[in-house]
């Protein structure tokens, strides 16, 4: 069958996994029955345990779904600790359902796949050796990639039923009241883990820092927690978030950032009380800096900044240029450390952030978002999942969710090395072109023809030449040449859900 973005989907798998093809970015107003977790009642006397091994073996059984969060990012010790025990005990047929997978989790995940311990994975993304292994068919069942909002929806609707959640925290009391803000391994917002804490049948907190009861503020509550396990170290503070974020000196990135800022300022959304989301990455951080100056020059403040937060955004909060920071995760130390001292930096869960299947998510109120792309095609579809060599090397993240903003800007260079970014057809379609409005490159911008209002607003901005996206694609091709088409086998190694749970694309096994 084919979906509405002309991707051919494998009928057999679609039937077997009970999936519908992607149709539209409009979620509508369906009525949804949520699921609830099982609860084993306790007064809490038996919660605090010394042995992670016992917490694993008492609760995990073959065939179960286990979950983790990725807030410790590349400094995570918890995933490796738990998976080591699980592999050594010879468990079989587990489903791994983390919020995402970072590089530090790759080796042990590959080992778990090779030994048949893990036979299913759902994640926001994967990179490096794991992405390579999966792209070459290491896992028998296809990986399911979901956006952060999509994962929240899937958990609430029971598409992901978490049996045991292993959640590392930088502090907890003996009953399981915990937050992400305090302690040596503080990472700030616990946003993604809040879903697991609320919906998993068993919740095992893992910490190196037992604090006095009762621990406040409590992002995870004692009512949700079955066990609190004390270990030596939950993570490496130096690798949790990047250190001080450097301002890019790359002239190409600066040009793109300046143009993004020009697009925002000349759009109808740049007015007092507007809201925005920038991501991480050199150009996005530079945009924040240009935007700051434009806000000062025009006497404009923002009602909120959303999503993954960095220090430059916190600076705007402290200067009063942004009223609230709605924070689902923190990308650097500056953002992580400010949360505990600034009550306008509000921790939000994945569902509050980005889930379409609730009574309104933050992204529904978002005016402007700046997103990146590995590739964007002439229908404005965006790929953030697979490289131009067909190998999985990215994550959906909040891309699909935030792209529903009123003004969605994709910032990307025309080419990276010999790889074109603007292409005739994306390798993997992650975010449908219907939700994308403007592409900003170093040579100029392209505006989605569906947005005549933006074409009118942006057609005469000094220093911002407007091209058709086909023209930008041809410029890219003139530089790098026409690539040979990739060769795949018939086997599906991953399915990419749109945020509503339909299938927007699949990824095939790469032929080498």
């Amino acid at each position: 069958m084919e979906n509405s973005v002309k991707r051919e989907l494998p009928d057999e798998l679609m039937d077997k996994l009970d999936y519908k093809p992607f149709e539209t970015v409009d979620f509508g107003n369906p009525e949804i029955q949520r699921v609830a977790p099982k609860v084993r009642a306790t007064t809490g006397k038996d919660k605090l345990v010394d042995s992670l091994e016992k917490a694993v073996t008492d609760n995990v059984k073959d065939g179960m779904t286990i979950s983790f969060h990725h807030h410790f990012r590349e400094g995570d010790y918890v995933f490796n600790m738990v998976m080591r025990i699980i592999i050594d005990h010879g468990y079989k047929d587990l489903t791994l359902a983390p919020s995402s997978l970072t590089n530090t989790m790759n080796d042990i995940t590959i080992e778990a796949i090779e030994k048949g311990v893990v036979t299913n994975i759902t994640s926001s993304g994967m990179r490096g050796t794991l992405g390579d292994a999966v792209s070459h068919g290491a896992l028998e069942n296809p990986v399911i990639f979901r956006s952060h909002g999509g994962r929240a929806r899937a958990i609430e609707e029971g598409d992901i039923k978490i049996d045991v959640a292993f959640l590392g925290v930088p502090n907890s009391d003996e009953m399981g009241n915990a937050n992400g803000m305090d302690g040596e391994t503080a990472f700030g917002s616990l946003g993604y883990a809040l879903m697991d804490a609320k919906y998993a049948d068993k919740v095992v907190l893992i910490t190196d820092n037992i604090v006095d009861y009762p621990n406040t503020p409590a992002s995870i509550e004692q009512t949700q927690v079955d066990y609190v396990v004390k270990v030596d170290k939950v993570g490496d503070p130096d690798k949790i978030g990047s250190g001080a974020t450097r301002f890019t000196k790359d002239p190409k990135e600066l040009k793109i950032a300046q143009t993004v800022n020009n697009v925002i300022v000349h759009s109808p959304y740049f007015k007092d009380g507007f809201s925005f989301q920038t991501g991480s990455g050199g150009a996005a951080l530079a945009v924040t800096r240009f935007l700051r100056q434009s806000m000062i020059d025009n006497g404009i403040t923002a009602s909120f900044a959303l999503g993954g937060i960095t220090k430059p955004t916190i600076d705007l909060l402290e200067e009063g240029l942004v009223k609230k920071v709605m924070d689902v995760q923190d990308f650097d130390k500056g953002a992580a450390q400010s949360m505990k001292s600034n009550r306008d930096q509000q921790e939000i869960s994945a569902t509050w952030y980005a889930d379409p299947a609730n009574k309104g998510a933050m992204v529904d109120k978002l005016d402007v978002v700046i997103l990146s792309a590995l590739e964007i095609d002439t229908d404005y579809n965006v790929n953030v999942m697979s490289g131009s060599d067909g190998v999985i090397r990215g994550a959906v993240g909040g891309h699909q969710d935030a792209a529903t903003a009123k003004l969605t800007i994709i910032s990307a260079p025309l080419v990276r090395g010999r790889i074109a970014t603007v292409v005739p057809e994306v390798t993997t379609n992650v975010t449908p072109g219907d939700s994308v409005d403007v592409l900003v490159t170093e040579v100029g911008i392209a505006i989605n023809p569906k947005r005549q209002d933006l074409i009118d607003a942006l057609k005469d901005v000094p220093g911002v030449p407007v091209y058709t996206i086909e023209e930008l694609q041809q410029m890219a091709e003139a530089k790098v040449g026409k690539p040979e088409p990739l060769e795949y086998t018939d086997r599906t190694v991953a399915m990419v859900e749109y945020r509503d749970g339909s299938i927007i694309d699949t990824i095939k096994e790469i032929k080498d």
Partner: protein
Amino acid sequence: MEIKKTAIAGTLESSDVQIMLSQGTDGIQFNLESDVEKQYGKAIKATVADVLKAYGVDNANVKIVDKGALDMVIKARAIAATQRALDIVDEPMWEVL
């Protein structure tokens, strides 16, 4: 023309290509390393082969370590490596350039 000595041109910097030519007896033999081999392997070899042909080189071992170079860079490095290998740097074949 016969290759007189092993010669190299280019660096291993991003967006550059390093090309090494040495004597061969069995036509043009390629050994290519590139991150974009799947998409551009054939194009890279064709560009270098065209340069060698223009210089009349029929036998050579060609080692290419590509770091995502654009076609014009590959051509320039191939010309430099060939002139060095043929020992004609002081008297380049202008008609090829």
